[in-house]
């Protein structure tokens, strides 16, 4: 299976069929592909979450929402990035990550500083060093852009 291409018959908006040689993935928009994708990532992601019991997650296919204390969330995401690449050849888009901090105990500057300090400390977060995410605070989208 690995490396062997199959032919995808794709019909464009004019009804013109095209035959594409594919060796990875499936057709987004195909109803069964959504189910097959979700079923495939389920055990890989689930096993990582078993090792991080302080973290919780809800997902719709590839849209994944991690809810956890900051340090535990970063540790989980670092491991998840590694496992998804090794097992499924999937790449997390680290620069596009966002981080929402519910509540009002920290102001914008404190939130940015805490995020930056936490990310900088443990060695295991080095894979996430390219995070260029917006850090959001409170229930309203109060954006305080974090940049490395």
């Amino acid at each position, binding site marked *: *299976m*690995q490396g062997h291409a199959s032919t995808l018959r794709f019909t464009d908006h004019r009804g013109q069929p095209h035959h594409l040689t*594919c060796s*990875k*993935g*499936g057709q*987004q928009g195909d109803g*069964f*592909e959504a*189910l*097959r*994708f*979700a*079923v*495939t*990532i*389920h*055990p*890989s992601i*689930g*096993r*990582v*979450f*078993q090792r991080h*019991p302080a*973290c*919780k*997650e*809800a*997902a*719709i296919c*590839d*849209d*994944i*929402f991690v*809810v*956890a*204390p*900051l340090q535990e*969330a970063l540790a989980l*995401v670092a491991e998840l990035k*590694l*496992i998804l690449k*090794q*097992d*499924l*050849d*999937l*790449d*997390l*888009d680290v620069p*596009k990550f966002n*981080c*929402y*901090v*519910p*509540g009002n*105990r*920290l102001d914008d500057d404190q939130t940015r500083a*805490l995020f930056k300090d936490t990310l900088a400390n443990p060695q295991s977060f080095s894979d996430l060093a390219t995070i260029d995410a917006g850090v959001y605070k409170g229930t309203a989208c109060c954006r305080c852009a974090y940049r490395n």
Partner: protein
Amino acid sequence: MSTYDNFLQFACQKDSATRCSQITQLIASNWEVHDVDNPLVVMPLNIINAFCSICRQAQFEVLAERASTSYDNGNMRDGDMIPCAPSLRKYWG
């Protein structure tokens, strides 16, 4: 199908986006009990070209319910069972 206490997948369910959002907000509403030095956060993750990039071998093996190679950094080995929903067997074979 394996179930995990702290991981919920809402794909292909009715009102999946609404339910996913409600669950996420419900969990995040517990922010006050967490230390201010390690606050509760919500991190939406994004996978690059997810559907068209996923490894087909892994997709088939999940449907076949058996690993043919090592997964999970060596914690799952060649020949190990991969639990999958029995209702998916009709799409296989």
